[in-house]
């Protein structure tokens, strides 16, 4: 009897504890590192009384975690814009954005158009833009000269380059082979053939990759120490290295940098939507957005933030993209099933000798 009562008591305590934890004064965000600077979270707390709780992650993990709980556990998530529609159709992990609660006039309209195109299902919008940038090449110009993704495979760079063993790399090398992978999204057969070709290219090139990096710091350290002379990387990381060592530069590859955009989405079973909307409106305020952009090192989707950006970052952008965003490709939404094809190719590259 006593033990039974004790068990009940313990159960009650855990449940009680859990329900107390998700009160209206807490906002649980799952996002990328650097996306929520401590300073911004502190200011939000001062203005609204809401405490931000952070979990750091990446696209795949965000989706997997939300899938495991059916969209519970977080009030706001920040996946990339091309990864939303597919995951939503497959796993129903998000809820639509209520545009009545968002100050839409704070956003850059072109970026809103992109999410409308790529992250809408049945006329309902599931995401709002947060920050954006482009993935291209980082190069130590003292030690190497490259112009396109394919140059990473030149024999003189054996063991001195790096890429991620993930889909952006497949897309980049497909573009470098002169084909457009995004045009083949709807054509499973053509896409599979293209991916197999890219897989073969990357397998032959494997000796050139010192490692496949899976976090930013691993690559940054490799480039800093000189072990890596050229790699695929997104602009902000390269610009950070550039500030430390002017020889290290971000370049827009000949076949085009690939632009990404991370977003705000509401998990299907998030408990504090009010706080999430308050956070969205707060972080899109130009003064706050500029602080975030500085911490991330990329541009914000907030309309007024660009004027407040650091002049250095603007300069770096001009140097890396002399003709603006003309030679840049945006990721379209990934149809379900494509990632299975890519997965097999990535496994083969990993196993190649």
């Amino acid at each position, binding site marked *: 009897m006593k033990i039974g009562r004790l068990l009940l008591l313990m159960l009650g305590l855990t449940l009680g504890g859990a329900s107390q934890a998700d009160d209206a004064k807490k906002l649980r965000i799952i996002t990328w590192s650097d996306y929520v600077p401590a300073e911004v979270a502190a200011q939000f707390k001062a203005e609204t009384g809401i405490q931000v709780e952070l979990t750091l992650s990446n696209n795949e993990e965000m989706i997997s975690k939300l899938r495991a709980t059916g969209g519970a556990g977080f009030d706001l998530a920040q996946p990339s814009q091309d990864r939303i529609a597919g995951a939503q159709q497959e796993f129903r992990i998000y809820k639509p954005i209520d545009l009545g609660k968002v100050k839409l006039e704070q956003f850059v309209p072109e970026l809103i158009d992109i999410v409308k195109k790529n992250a809408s299902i049945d006329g309902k919008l599931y995401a709002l833009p947060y920050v954006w940038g482009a993935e291209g090449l980082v190069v130590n110009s003292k030690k190497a000269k490259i112009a396109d993704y394919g140059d990473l495979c030149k024999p003189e760079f054996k063991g001195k380059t790096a890429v991620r063993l993930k889909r952006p790399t497949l897309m980049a090398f497909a573009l470098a082979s002169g084909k457009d992978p995004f045009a083949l999204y709807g054509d499973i057969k053509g896409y599979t053939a293209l991916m197999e070709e890219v897989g073969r290219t990357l397998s032959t090139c494997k000796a050139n990759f010192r490692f496949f990096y899976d976090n930013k710091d691993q690559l940054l350290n490799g480039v800093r120490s*000189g072990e890596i002379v050229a790699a695929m990387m997104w602009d902000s990381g390269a610009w950070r290295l550039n500030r430390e060592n002017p020889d290290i530069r971000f370049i827009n590859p000949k076949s085009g940098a690939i632009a990404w955009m991370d977003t705000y989405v509401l998990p299907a079973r998030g408990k504090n939507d009010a706080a999430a909307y308050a956070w969205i409106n707060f972080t899109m305020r130009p003064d706050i957005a500029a602080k975030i952009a500085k911490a991330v090192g990329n541009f914000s989707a907030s309309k007024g933030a660009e004027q407040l950006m650091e002049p250095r970052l603007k300069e770096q952008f001009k140097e890396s993209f002399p003709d603006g965003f003309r030679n840049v490709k945006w990721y379209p939404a990934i149809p379900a099933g494509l990632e299975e094809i890519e997965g097999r190719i990535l496994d083969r590259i990993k196993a190649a000798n």
Partner: protein
Amino acid sequence: MVDTPAGGAWKGRLMLGLMLAPAVLWLFALIVLPHVDLALLSFRERLAPRQYGASLAQYRTFFGEPLYWHVFVRTAVMSAIATALTLLFAFPVAWTIAKLTRGRTSALLFVVCLIPFWVSETVRTLGWMILLRESGVLPQLLAHLGVTDVPVELLYHDATILVGLVYTSLLFMVVPLVNSFESLDNSLIEAAYDLGGNAGSILREIVIPHATPGITAGCIVVFMLTLGNYLTPNLLGGKNSQWFTEQIYTQFITRFNWEQGAAFGFLLLALSTAMVWVGLKASGQRFGDVMRRA
């Protein structure tokens, strides 16, 4: 029927049940239930968004794609090699602790074996990375001493993975070995020398037969730990690691393919069960005896 002694027995059984309850609950809720769920998951296939049907497709993929069973076999072979190496290194260490030293020295040696385990596996593995990377301590030292012309990358080789695995599992081999050796009566060895035995024959005829349960226990534990290790092969092996647990992680997390991941998980479980069974049969041991030594 219910007289006092029977009532007492009933109470005793109730007490026993209550004592066992945490263990049984633990086993059931955290081990049996998830496995049943995984088993069901591994036997289904995605037909369309949110539509699944029963199928053997996941297991067919495993046998159909050479890549997967290649990694599977590789993981098993590397784990077996790591286990053998661990035994080789742990044997003299355990012998020293159990037989050649006494009291404080013996305890001190034991603590030395234990110290690396005071920090987490991640930290230990990252330590190895700092030592072995091209700009790290060891390659720089080798280049400085003139052994190599330029610093060489020591990370991302199979040998590196083995070093990491042996290092991580050494303690789990030393403990059962020390237990076995301690129970070995020294007079037996002395008697063997008196009867004209030498070091080799004594090792073969007396020490190893006596320590077999301990050796088997250590090997089983180390083999299972190695087979299921994710961190060490992943960090030290880099682009060539190809460990089966990594495949499972990738299927679950990166590919969102829980069905495939579940099937892989079961194949790994079957593999470790089979290897343990073979090990027991080969050494002529019984599972219960061996586990008591571990």
